[in-house]
């Protein structure tokens, strides 16, 4: 039992565990909306788009939680809205415009970082450092988690209609585009809250894997976001423990644990797993063959020799 409690003796591990549980739950909860709205690539693009705003915030106002927060938020929203503006006002589609804008934004961020007086490691931005969580980081995580969960729970009905039948939702007075912007804003906020802990790249794993795993088990919308939240939380905590025991990078361990659980679900989920489906198909095939054999005994089969010689269409 001691080996389980041993990590908690260190204060940095207690903070890390608290941060992990919150980020894991919030991102896992949000992941249902990302998966169903098919926003994984958008999330990837936005994760890179935070950098120029973050760099500009640091250059103008120094390295403070507020400058990082607002810089990253404004930059990501500008890229998301810019991509939509380009796709709406020209023949270039949204994925292409997003691809251009986020690479430009990321490049701009790298250039801007070289002007920053404070040294910011790019590696730190991409992969985070959960063992170095400060009080301000924990407050940011706490605030964003609270806001995200309250908004998503309060709006789950219109969100469900919008995700399932956007045309119906719009026809029945659900503000579809406003809800879309809301999901994007929550996505960006969640990435900012994950920035220090797991970094933006690994935040993507937390924003997709939990709901995708539950998606392979359940046909219930609410199971997807509550289940995603719980799985995200447990997976993150387990990943943190693994990283402590094996002395490996924590963010990577968290995503590897979640990825591993997804692979197990993909293979073995009783409903939508590959192997049970294969087994069911073979079983059905055998059943159908047995039915055919059984029926054949009752059918009167006419041997070819007994068929009439001339067919009506043989003339």
């Amino acid at each position, binding site marked *: 039992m001691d080996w389980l409690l041993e990590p908690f003796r260190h204060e940095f591990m207690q903070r890390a565990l608290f941060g992990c549980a919150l980020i894991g739950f919030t991102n896992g909860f949000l992941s249902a909306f990302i998966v169903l709205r098919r926003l994984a690539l958008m999330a990837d693009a936005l994760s890179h788009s935070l950098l120029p705003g973050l760099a500009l915030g640091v250059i103008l106002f120094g390295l403070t939680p507020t400058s990082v927060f607002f810089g990253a938020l404004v930059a990501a929203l500008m890229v998301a809205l810019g991509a939509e503006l380009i796709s709406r006002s020209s023949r270039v589609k949204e994925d292409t415009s997003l691809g251009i804008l986020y690479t430009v934004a990321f490049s701009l961020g790298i250039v801007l970082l070289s002007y920053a007086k404070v040294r910011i490691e790019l590696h730190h931005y991409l992969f985070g450092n959960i063992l170095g969580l400060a009080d301000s980081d924990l407050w940011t995580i706490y605030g964003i988690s609270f806001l995200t969960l309250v908004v998503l729970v309060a709006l789950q009905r219109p969100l469900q209609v919008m995700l399932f039948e956007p045309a119906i939702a719009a026809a029945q007075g659900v503000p579809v585009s406003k809800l879309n912007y809301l999901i994007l804003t929550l996505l960006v906020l969640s990435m900012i809250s994950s920035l220090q802990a797991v970094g933006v790249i690994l935040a993507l794993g937390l924003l997709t894997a939990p709901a995708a795993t539950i998606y392979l088990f359940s*046909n*219930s919308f609410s199971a997807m976001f509550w289940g995603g939240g719980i799985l995200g939380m447990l997976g993150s905590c387990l990943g943190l423990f693994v990283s402590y025991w094996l002395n490996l990078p924590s963010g990577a361990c968290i995503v590897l644990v979640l990825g591993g659980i997804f692979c197990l679900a993909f293979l073995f989920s009783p409903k939508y797993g590959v192997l049970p489906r294969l087994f069911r198909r073979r079983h059905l095939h055998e059943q159908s063959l047995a039915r055919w054999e059984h029926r054949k005994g009752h059918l009167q089969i006419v041997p070819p020799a007994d068929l009439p010689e001339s067919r009506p269409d043989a003339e």
Partner: protein
Amino acid sequence: MSSHRLEIKDLTVSYNRVPAIHHLSMSLSCGNCVALLGPNGAGKTTLFKAMVGLLPKESGSIHFHGHSPHDPATDLTYLPQSNTQDSDFPITVRGVVELGRFLRLGWWKRFGAEDQRVVDEVLASLHLSDLADRQISALSGGQQQRAFLGRALAQEAHVFLLDEPFTGLDKGGQEMMSETLRSIAKRGNLVIASHHDLKTVPELFNQVILLNGELVAFGPTQEVFTEANIRRTYETESFSGVSHGLVT
């Protein structure tokens, strides 16, 4: 017959300033099953979308029971052509029908015993009770169509706008659909369904709208669904001005 009326006055709807429906005026009363007929590109779906507010009106007005349908959830329900939904969405048949109640209840009102009763009743009336816990992609096309109609029924709206509800249904499915539409109209609702199979119009609908960019004819099936009107609808160029008396 119910006194509720759907009044459309001088309605023009455009795509990029090019009108798809010209100066359409008609008055429909509840309790009828109305066929919306016209060739491809005649503006049938455009008319539906304008009625539910998905497309802006260039001119004119739509009033239901004396007011503009400002509460779309209780006045009008719209069933678009099939295949607009994500069939892998994690939702069962019961869940689809419950969505209709959510639209009626709004964002936060509690889903109570009465709502549960309506959902059960709708499922039973559409012969879907046995399939209630199945995921929607595990259903046939006709069963899916019925589930979506169930969503519209659970909403308990007054006017049902159905875009080609008979498309892709086999004979049994068509019979079940026509029986359901007639019973909805009998309850005092207004059903407007776009339709392609002209042969089945007289047996399915008691009123007909013939549309081809403009209103060619509207009225009881036995009076309006004539050879001459059908020819004018299907063989005239879209918006010729003929029906508006602009061209002789």
